[in-house]
């Protein structure tokens, strides 16, 4: 483990309320793998926004037929979905490699389910954000302007791509093996899952796509609805952050079977 990895692992533990927990090679390796995975995932999501925007631009210029644009967009979205799946698998493989070096292995008698890892509040928020993005896309389909309708179809394809990618990542998070050697590393494992799940369901792309693809073309009521959804979403997210217990508290609760 490099000194930089060690420093960031120490800072991570301190930030999570575990100042007495030792910085181990296991922790250093897992955090380094997560940093790389998050950068890769952010790049994939940025690529999705760019591809959707290019598809919209191609539609506007009439340079490509609408059907061809959708075909290319669907293929690109599927490719990006596969990329997110590979990122999640690579992260799980890095965890497995780190776990294979441990002389002792610890596991839960009760594996934390979605209620612990994601939590009802974040799950409801994620579903609501997805629902709003889909509703904005569907409502734009009712507009008579063909440019808006084309943008709406592109938006729906991209939104469904994001949703599928998130579902794939959450499934991987819930089913991937625990990597721990004692109570502290088991707690850390739960914290990492909680943070990975919250990162996966981050609403930024679902808030960005409608604004990037349709603002300026869509009617005023649609623009107001899109911005209103973002403002309400930010308020709801702030409320959830304020009310949800810290990941350490949730992880410690998960360690108690009943």
């Amino acid at each position, binding site marked *: 483990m490099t000194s930089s990895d060690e420093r960031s692992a120490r800072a991570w533990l301190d930030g999570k309320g575990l100042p007495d927990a030792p910085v181990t090679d296991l922790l250093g390796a897992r955090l380094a793998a997560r940093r790389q995975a998050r950068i890769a995932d952010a790049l994939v999501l940025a690529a999705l926004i760019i591809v959707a925007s290019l598809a919209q631009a191609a539609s506007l210029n009439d340079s490509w037929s609408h059907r061809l644009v959708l075909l290319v967009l669907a293929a690109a979205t599927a490719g990006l979905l596969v990329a997110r799946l590979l990122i999640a698998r690579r992260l799980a493989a890095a965890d497995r490699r780190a*776990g*294979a070096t*441990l*002389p*002792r*292995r*610890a*596991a*839960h*008698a*009760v*594996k934390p389910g979605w209620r612990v890892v994601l939590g009802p509040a974040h799950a409801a928020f994620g579903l609501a954000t997805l629902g709003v993005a889909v509703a904005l896309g569907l409502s734009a389909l009712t507009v008579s302007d063909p440019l808006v309708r084309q943008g709406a179809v592109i938006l729906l394809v991209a939104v469904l791509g994001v949703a599928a990618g998130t579902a794939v990542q959450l499934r991987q998070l819930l*089913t991937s*093996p*625990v990597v721990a*050697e*004692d*109570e502290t590393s*088991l707690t850390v494992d739960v914290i990492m899952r909680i943070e990975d799940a919250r990162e996966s369901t981050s609403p930024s792309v679902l808030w960005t796509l409608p604004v990037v693809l349709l603002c300026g073309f869509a009617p005023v009521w649609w623009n107001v609805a899109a911005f209103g959804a973002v403002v309400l979403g930010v308020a709801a997210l702030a409320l959830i952050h304020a009310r949800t217990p810290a990941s350490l508290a949730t992880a410690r609760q998960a*360690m108690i*079977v*009943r």
Partner: protein
Amino acid sequence: MIVIDAASAVPPFEQLRVQLARQIQDHTLPVGFRLPTIRSLATDLGLAANTVARAYRELEEAGLIETRGRAGSFVSAAGEASRERARHAAADYAAVIASLGLDLDEALAIARAALTATRPAS
């Protein structure tokens, strides 16, 4: 929490069996509680599926858990009956000790030796 130490002299299936049995007996795992699947627990603990399956099989034979087909393995209510059986056996033993006139320390030493001989240390 379940911990498996690869360096221990106790076989991994026995480490797992003892820890699960203890958690069932002290009600950390309550009656009706669904145990992790064999494959999931084996992956989490870095064990072969056969190892976990053997521990589950022995727990089932001891009446501590029951397998309900594809629904999985659950902590059995029979665990309470096993505990009651142990209490009866202890009462019978206490009666024998009283009839033989042995003192408490010797009786406990005999019981401890018998328990140690039949249950490897975890």
